[in-house]
């Protein structure tokens, strides 16, 4: 099969200087069904044509409001959702067409940390069983003694006492549960982890512990992260680069610092201005862009630029054709807008 041939060819050419993950024209649509015969009446275009490259060792932040498709994009990269079109390359190799066995091998390289540490751990399993399951599936740490040692080591890594191994999730606080979730992700020694809103469900005083832990583990194991969150302050803190999504599309990609200093897409600009800063003197002087209306529908997105219905810079042209993601600044900064900000 020619597809198989190109996969091999791509893999041979891949070097660590190339993107670890490459997403090309990815679309993940979900059918909307209605009526007694469950007829498909429309499509939720959760991810609707995304190109994105994630470099080895970096943290790519992914921000956007609820329903913009950021989680679906993360899950599609891991094949936890089935994309409708496009390609995902891992180390240069297309993974969407892989069979079960090749995919299982690949699952060792990629992991996910979920938002809700209350829902993502099986309440009937002990910590040892939760962590052991990942080891067993991939035939890691074989033998009872090595298995127990590895579990103890994983608990060390996430700053939990070794004797917690016999306990159940309900015995832990939210922060501790998230540590277990992180240990489970690390069990397979992945190179790439999708962090899907890993701190949004935690108490404010616990969030920094988890952010610091993720940063420290990244240094220790040279991990690559896709960090998904709606809180731009957290994303800016942890990310090297940030991609901003709006209604299924990436509208801006930039190094984290530039995105804050010089946002180019009007949506990014308004998102940044909407985030409160814990400094009353600064807040008082701040100029706010208050957007009108609600996020556009991903079932029936507006023509042209999807943000134009709320945009303060929109012109007739924006309704006609969709602006492509183009270089707007020197140095790695792209935005999809005909009339980018100053």
């Amino acid at each position: 099969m020619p597809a198989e041939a190109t996969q091999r060819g791509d893999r041979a050419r891949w070097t660590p200087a190339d993107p670890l993950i490459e997403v090309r024209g990815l679309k993940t649509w979900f059918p909307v069904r209605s009526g007694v015969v469950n007829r498909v009446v429309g499509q939720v275009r959760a991810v609707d044509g995304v190109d994105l490259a994630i470099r080895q060792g970096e943290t790519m932040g992914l921000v956007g409001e609820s329903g913009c498709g950021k989680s679906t994009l993360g899950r599609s990269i891991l094949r936890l959702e089935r994309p409708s079109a496009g390609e995902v390359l891992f180390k240069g190799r297309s993974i969407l067409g892989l069979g079960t066995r090749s995919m299982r091998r690949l699952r060792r390289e990629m992991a996910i940390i979920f938002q809700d540490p209350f829902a993502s751990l099986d309440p009937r399993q002990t910590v040892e069983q939760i962590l052991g399951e990942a080891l067993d599936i991939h035939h890691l740490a074989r033998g009872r003694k090595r298995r127990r040692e590895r579990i103890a080591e994983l608990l060390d890594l996430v700053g939990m006492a070794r004797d917690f191994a016999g306990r159940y999730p309900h015995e832990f606080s939210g922060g501790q549960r998230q540590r277990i979730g992180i240990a489970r992700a690390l069990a397979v020694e992945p190179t790439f982890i999708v962090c899907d809103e890993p701190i949004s469900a935690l108490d404010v005083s616990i969030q920094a512990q988890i952010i610091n832990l993720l940063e420290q583990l990244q240094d220790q194991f040279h991990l690559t992260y896709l960090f998904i969150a709606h809180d731009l302050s957290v994303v800016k803190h942890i990310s090297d680069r940030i991609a901003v999504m709006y209604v299924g599309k990436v509208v801006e990609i930039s190094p984290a610092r530039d995105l804050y200093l010089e946002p180019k897409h009007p949506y990014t600009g308004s998102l940044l201005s909407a985030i409160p800063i814990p400094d009353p003197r600064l807040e008082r002087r701040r100029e706010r862009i208050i957007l009108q209306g609600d996020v556009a529908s991903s079932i029936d997105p507006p023509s042209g630029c999807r943000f134009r219905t709320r945009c303060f810079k929109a012109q007739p042209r924006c309704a006609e054709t969709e602006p492509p993601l183009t270089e707007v600044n020197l140095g790695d900064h792209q935005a999809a807008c005909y009339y980018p900000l100053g």
Partner: protein
Amino acid sequence: MTHLLELENVQTHIALKHGLIRAVDQVSLTVDAGETLGIVGESGSGKSMTALSIMRLLPRASRIAGGRIRFKGRDLADLSEEEMESIRGTEIAMIFQDPMTSLNPVYRVGWQVGEPLRIHRHMDKQASIEAAVDLFKKVGIPDAKRRVSQFPHMFSGGMRQRTMIAMGLSTGPSLLIADEPTTALDVTIQAQILELLRTLNRDYGTATILITHNLGVVAGMCDRVIVMYAGRVVEEGSTEDVFVHPEHPYTWSLLRSIPRLDASEHESLKPIVGSPPDMTQLPGGCKFQPRCPFAIERCAADEPELREVRSQLARCWVTQAGQSLDSNAG
């Protein structure tokens, strides 16, 4: 001068099978007409229970065990349930975090927004719905005439929260209690709702108690702020004083642990150690002391009172003794 609202040593207890939770422990606070007071704290700190105590809307198994709550000089504890009902409908309005569950799905929104007016202002149906249209315009719901006849499921989260605000404002209350009003909303929608609350406060002089875990929201909205931890007020002062020179180690640590959008360099965050307190097993002495980087011997033995420290109030032995938190930062 009498305050609009005054709480004096309010205690609210929740009876559980395995013990008593002092969810609100000796909380005193005041709100003056037209003012915006922020109450910040994490989940379980007692901020919502304080609000529910004021409204006398406490969940089952919980009760106000002590203290006084005075509204416009009247002790709310002396009021019958009927009189309290009228206060809730006309004088004090409350909006909640989740606008999805606060509206009845089977009634048209206009009917629901007009309900306080029919009950407390004895308006007829037609007049109450006309009033709802006006209220919708005030809170920025476009196409108000058509919108009032729709059902809640046809509204987005932001629109539902606007609807709740419209309902709360219908009788022109002098106090609005907003309990995490934007937590369930997206940031751009949060900005819209906060802007609306600012406008209403400015245009109608409605005093507001804003309950939130988000320090940024407080910074942008509130004149004064109260910080709660383990059911207690640990710090109180003008927003500027509390944010610029916090005098309680919890406030101090919290401000240093959150990433800021305007940080110029990547600095590693300084987390608060440990976990939020287990309300059924609180430590002796100061409740924050097991997590406190400044704790001295005395902190584990005696619990400090809320006392004046510089221009605000703080419940801390260290700052009360005149030590500055910034100079010996750990």
